[in-house]
């Protein structure tokens, strides 16, 4: 009923359709990608790992700093300040999953900056922190 050519074309179209459907969910970013997108949003100075480190370890007027849960050494595991729940390392060199999922990064920056700073973090601050985390081995 169907010619070989017919079947070949239908197969190719199905394959392309399936791959096209799956492609967006297979999309993962790298820490460098995040750094670039923060840089685009931050029209100011280039990022500074040193500034990021200070920012990470300072209390900004409330009880917690980033280090309160993530510890002073982002290469090791931390724990939640209240529940003691284990938190995997933040440094990409120590944990390949960090800064690969845009939804996850956005969610945790929103929550944690609200807790630590009572506001959102600026793209400059996010970039500085990420620059710092990328230097930690």
């Amino acid at each position: 009923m169907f010619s070989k050519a017919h079947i070949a074309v239908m197969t190719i179209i199905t394959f392309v359709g399936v791959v096209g459907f799956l492609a967006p969910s297979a999309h993962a970013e790298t820490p460098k990608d995040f750094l670039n997108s923060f840089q685009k949003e931050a029209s100011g100075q280039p990022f500074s790992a040193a500034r990021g480190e200070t920012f990470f370890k300072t209390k900004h007027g409330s009880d917690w700093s980033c280090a309160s849960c993530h510890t002073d050494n982002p290469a090791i595991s931390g724990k939640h300040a209240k529940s003691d729940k284990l938190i995997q390392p933040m440094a990409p060199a120590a944990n390949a999953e960090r800064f690969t999922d845009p939804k996850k990064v956005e969610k945790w920056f929103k929550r944690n900056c609200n807790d630590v700073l009572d506001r959102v973090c600026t793209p400059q601050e996010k970039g500085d922190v990420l620059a710092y985390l990328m230097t930690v081995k």
Partner: protein
Amino acid sequence: MKIIDFKILFVIVLTLLAMVVTMSIARADDDNEGYGGWFGERHSESRDSERGGEKRGKSKMPAQVNAKFKKECSACHIAYPPGLLPAESWRKMMAGLDQHFGSDASLDAQDSKEITDFLVANASNRWSGASAPLRISETSWFLREHDGHEINPDVWKNPKVKSPSNCGACHTKADQGDFKERNIRIPK
């Protein structure tokens, strides 16, 4: 004659043992309300004297656990089984996630809705009061299950326990929604 007596005795003892073991297994339902093994006390299931009718559900955790709930709600603590609180408590909690016991635990609208629907659908089906507490550890059923008759008050001072919200400190399989008596190990 002596040897035959021994055999009969042996068979009788074995039978008694088998009976006791079988009875124990037969009572081992999922919803172990304080059944402390072979000789432990049995709490009454139908105790409507719970203050304000605050009773946890017949099932604490449903057979089908929503994946998003499990992932998102275990980021900082164990994913508390929905059957431990009434639907209204879960609705209130999910509506105020940015002020979740002192932390911002907010989710995007889609995730929030999916998780809320799951919690509400599987909330306690035995809660007869109008109350909707946010803290599981302040409900009547919790206070009764963990009162001085059940637990030595010194346990709460143990730094390994830290807080009544830390189920996993004693309930070794709490993260799986399993609170069976046999899986409790109170830390020293």
